[in-house]
């Protein structure tokens, strides 16, 4: 602007007037143009130095203001700022607590659902083995009851089954028939039926349970195998590390019984 003004308004004879500032006659533009004319005088130099100082200060301050930091703030502002920050922090902490509680709730929901699922699965496995719906594997014994003369009675085999149950047998099959809670030996000596299916001697029992307990229980004097021998048959027990009960039974759904509703929802 200064150069434009200086070029635009060269008052005629403006530079001839030696001390423009002492005269009132010339226009403002000519005074300005005269003042802007580069001369080395004390006034010009002093003004230049002060203007340089001002420019420096302005730039410094502008830079300072654009990177305003906390250190430039006054105490009141700092207290207010601190207040606001504290309030905001408290709010955030409360929200954090709430969200954490919610997350914990969801997690425990999830884990309890998982636990319920696990329990249901275990329960299904247990019941599947007990009802004969699932094949089973484990340590146990193989009991062979030979009946060369066809004189072993169904009641004797039932006695043997009860003995096995007493000894803690968990899954059993005779021949290809799974033994369940509702299994029944019928027929007569030599033509034993298990759940309506004829059994062929020798009767081969596969039993899962503690082998030692079962073997001891069967062999005691006057026990199940003794009863078999009294009938004219013969029996032997083989302990095995692992036996497989693969025969399956299809439990009939109960016609009359329904579960008692649980106490709590």
């Amino acid at each position: 602007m200064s150069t434009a003004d200086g070029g635009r308004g060269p008052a005629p004879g403006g530079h001839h007037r030696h001390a423009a500032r002492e005269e009132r006659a010339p226009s403002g533009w000519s005074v300005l143009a005269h003042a802007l004319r580069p001369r080395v005088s004390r006034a010009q130099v002093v003004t230049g130095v002060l203007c340089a100082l001002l420019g420096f200060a302005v730039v410094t301050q502008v830079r300072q203001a654009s990177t305003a930091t906390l250190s430039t703030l006054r105490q009141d502002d700092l207290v207010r700022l601190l207040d606001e920050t504290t309030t905001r922090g408290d709010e955030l902490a409360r929200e954090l607590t709430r969200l954490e509680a919610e997350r914990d709730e969801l997690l425990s929901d999830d884990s309890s659902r998982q636990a319920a699922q696990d329990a249901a699965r275990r329960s299904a496995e247990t019941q599947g083995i007990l009802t004969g719906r699932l094949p089973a594997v484990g340590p146990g014994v193989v009991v062979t009851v030979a009946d060369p003369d066809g004189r072993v009675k169904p009641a004797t085999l039932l006695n043997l089954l009860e003995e096995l149950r007493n000894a803690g047998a968990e899954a059993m099959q005779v021949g290809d028939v799974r033994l369940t809670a509702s299994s029944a030996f019928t027929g007569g000596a030599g033509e034993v039926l298990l759940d309506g299916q004829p059994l062929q001697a020798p009767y081969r029992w596969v039993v899962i349970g503690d082998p030692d307990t079962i073997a001891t229980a069967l062999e005691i004097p006057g026990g199940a195998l003794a009863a078999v021998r009294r009938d004219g048959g013969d029996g032997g027990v083989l302990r095995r590390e692992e036996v497989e009960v693969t025969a399956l039974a299809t439990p009939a759904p109960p016609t009359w019984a329904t579960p008692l509703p649980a106490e709590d929802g």
Partner: protein
Amino acid sequence: MIAAIGLVLGVVVGLAVRPEVPVELQPYLPIAVVAALDALFGGVRALLDGIFDDKVFVVSFLSNVVVAALIVFIGDQLGVGSQLSTAVVVVLGIRIFSNAASIRRHLFHA
């Protein structure tokens, strides 16, 4: 001309040096800048009035800066620093406006 060159030179130096303002001076620098602007406008007005005197300009420039900073300093000591700096800025702003109006009358006769 030398004044304009000086102004540009000051800006360039300020941009180049990137000075750090000491913490104790930070509240006073903006006030001092406004005071210096006031002195500058006053100087231009005096020039147009034909009564410019470099001695007066230097003294008014420096005293403006010092007095403005002093007022803010006293205000800070009294606990009313922010209010007093506002007051100083308002007063100097009014003076700058009236000086600018006077300059305008001289240059544009309006």
